[in-house]
């Protein structure tokens, strides 16, 4: 998906190097291939390619990845704004 790039410098994803055991599960599940393994640890090589789907964090056995996951959908966010500004659970998309 190198042909589609969204806003830069906004993705909330972080990898905790200390916790990472290098199992490479995050590499497997990432639909935008933002990780690589260097010195037996997962490293972010394309942070701006991250769409914050949360697949990596969900499948990380040591909880080394943190991301505020969600769906990048304007109508979902509008619904949330209208119902009181809670981010996270609740609110339906399309």
């Amino acid at each position, binding site marked *: 998906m190198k042909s589609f790039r969204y806003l830069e410098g906004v993705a909330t994803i972080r990898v905790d190097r200390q916790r990472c055991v290098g199992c490479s599960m995050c590499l497997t599940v990432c*639909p*935008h291939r933002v990780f690589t393994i260097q010195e037996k640890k997962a490293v972010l090589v394309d942070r701006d390619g991250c*769409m914050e789907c949360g697949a990596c964090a969900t499948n990380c056995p040591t909880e080394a990845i943190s991301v505020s996951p969600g769906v990048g*959908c304007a*109508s979902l*966010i*509008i619904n949330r704004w209208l119902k009181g500004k809670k981010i996270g659970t609740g609110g339906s*998309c*399309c």
Partner: protein
Amino acid sequence: MQFLPVAGQEDSPQTQQPDEAGIVELASLAEEESSGEVCCGGPAPSRSTLFEKPGYELKGYVRAFLRKDGDDIPLVKTKLDRKDHRQTLLARLGIIRDDYRVPPGLYGTGSPGADSPVLVTANYKLTFDFVRRELDGIDCWLLVLDTRGINVWCAAGKNTFSTDELVRQVENTRLAGKIEHRRLLIPQLGATGIAAHHVMLKCGFRVVYGPVRIADIGDFLDNDMQATEEMRSVTFTLWERFELIPVELYIFNKKIWWVFPLLFFLGALTPDFLSLADTWRRGLLSSAAIILGCTSGAMIVPLLLPWIPGRSFAFKGALTGLLLGGLLLWVSGAGPVEGTGLLLIFIAISSYLAMNFTGSTPYTSPTGVEKEMKGAIPLQAFALVAGALLWLAGPFI
């Protein structure tokens, strides 16, 4: 092995007995000779099979039943028929999209055995159809989760395609007793809802993430369940974007039809009050601006997405709105005040709808979408209000 009909066993035709693999083909039952003389409408159709039970409906996509451990597991067709294609079209148009589902549970294709792979999918009929179509000539089990009739990716985001639902279906279908391996093949885009290590802990099955697109499943299975980088990457091709457009338009159309009579009513408010020519011209032009504004944001932007400059969708929409709106008003020869008003309305609509398309793309992050909305919505609202005022004031200036 246990057979259902006890009474009337002598009536039960020989072919309702399963073959060596335990499979009863429904087509062979239908071909059975019907008895009796020909009356109205030709010979009587074939008798009901024992799989047609009171209160249940036998689905057209079921080819046969596999009798195993006291369960009748439906084996599905890998070719779509005319009805499937018609329903796909209606679902794409958003007409039958909300409750278009198949019953969750265990299905199969070909002649699945103890070593056959188990593919996990969602119970949106469109998804189910696309999956079985790609399984032609492949013997496998199909474990359909109850995702409330929603596709894998969206259901994973809503947590209905989830670890708990997967474990529940594995247990409900008594899957462990039907196969010898302990592997579940999950579509990669379902990974958002599934925690592989939790699945292992809860039901002892190992999760293997398959390719993003079901079209790659044959190659993936042939390649010892190893996916290439290409199979693991999400795409957003012109055709994939095109398929999304009808729904974008349909959802919006439901909400705006009442605007048009209002526009003709407001169009009548000119110095020559209720002049038929003015009413007609102003009503028509403003309706055209709104319809084309919607087209610009919900159709042109999605189709031309990679070629329109800018990262933000609201910006892309505003840009196409400016160009197309400008073209419309130049061609129509609207006055400067009225024309500016309509152009602002055109841009606001196009920008707003383009921004809404973020929900249909596979690459926009929620943090990014929220950021662009905070900047764009006030501007869109301002353009809409200012545009409406200018359009109303136009004839009086």
